């Protein structure tokens, strides 16, 4: 069971995320926000640089912007660990932002129960437990 971040104006589900460069086995732990509106997982660019992640493709992305114009951005592959579950070779994109957005390319692999009323949530999937 995890708690929402109540410091936010609109409390949001945050969880600790371990981002791993699978080729170098180096990692970084950082805050991640559950974002069911994001198709892909997003990591801050400083993590991309810190983990020396090599470019492994591009994605055409479209965010909530007034122009709604798509943008092509580089993508990377990382291993992600969160809530004691592990996700291998996950495609992510890097942007300049303070925290990680955990998108549906990860969320669709788990059972996610959001209890906004009690400001708590659960991530459940025994099949891919790390330990």
């Amino acid at each position, binding site marked *: 069971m995890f708690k929402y971040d109540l410091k936010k104006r609109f409390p949001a589900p945050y969880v600790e995320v371990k981002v791993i460069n699978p080729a170098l086995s180096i990692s970084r732990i950082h805050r991640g926000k559950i974002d069911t509106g994001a*198709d892909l997982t997003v990591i801050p660019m400083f993590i991309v640089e810190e983990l020396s992640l090599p470019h*492994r493709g591009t994605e055409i*992305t479209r965010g909530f912007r007034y122009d709604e114009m798509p943008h092509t951005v580089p993508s990377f592959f990382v291993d992600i660990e969160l809530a004691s579950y592990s996700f291998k070779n996950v495609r992510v994109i890097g942007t300049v932002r303070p925290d990680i957005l955990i998108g549906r390319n990860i969320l669709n692999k788990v059972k996610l129960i959001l209890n906004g009323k009690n400001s708590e949530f659960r991530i459940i999937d025994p099949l891919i437990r790390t330990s």
Partner: protein
Amino acid sequence: MTVLPGETILRLVKEGKLGIKPFYEDGIQPASYDARLGTEILVSPVGEERGEAKDLRMEKDKCYEIKTGQFVSVMTEEWFTFPNDICGKFGLRSEYTRKGLLAFGGIQIDPGWNGRLVISLFNIGPEPIPIKLGDEMFTIEFCRLESLTQNPYRGRYQNQPYFPAEDVNFILRARTVSLAEIKPIGEEISRLKNELALLKAEISRVQPEVKALAIQRLPFQFRVDMEKFNEIKIELLKNGKYRGKFVAIYRGELIGPEESEERLNMVINEKYGNVPAYISKVAEEEEIAEFSSPELV
């Protein structure tokens, strides 16, 4: 109570029983007196123009145009002194009402009243209406009471030479959008729409350049591999072995196909290590990844 005919109004003025100063004899009508527009007016804000007090003597042709939806307070040129057995009512001459000017009239002028009359005007017509200093705009009706009142008017507006301070403050501090601004708001929306359309067109125009710039920032070898993939993509699509599968280009070499990009990434890591490589699905169109959650900062 009887309405006084013009002859009686004239006689009472001449006898000094009814005060109208200055008095214009040609203002006498069959059963009323036509009062004239005085020098001072208070105009409500319109668009960028603030509310202000104006002196018509200082305006071009001593004239002011009341804009559609605008609220204006005016005073009569004449100073009226009502005896204790005469009351009055004021209104706007039909010449103005036909254009859409509305006067908040009909309010009784009490016996004993002494002062100039303040009249609020509102243009509900489709066009601006000019008013000019000295225009015979108002009609004043005089009525004789059954008997002298023992309680003539002694209110706070007695002897007013100018607009009451609260009226001036109200106009000068007015900040609300008046009806007069409805048209400018429509024009502003239209202008912004045009501006937005221009911006969108500009964004579309520079989009390929921005994309090209973004691509230029990618590592050189990765860019070369990406271009290589785009070159051979049509050929790969024709080949059932690759179509719908994932491939990678590393230093110009085609790797794959694999059923999943995860597997392909693992293969590259195992075979080449932590190197850039272009991994993509062999598909007709690239899917757009949506990030639809707006965040408050």
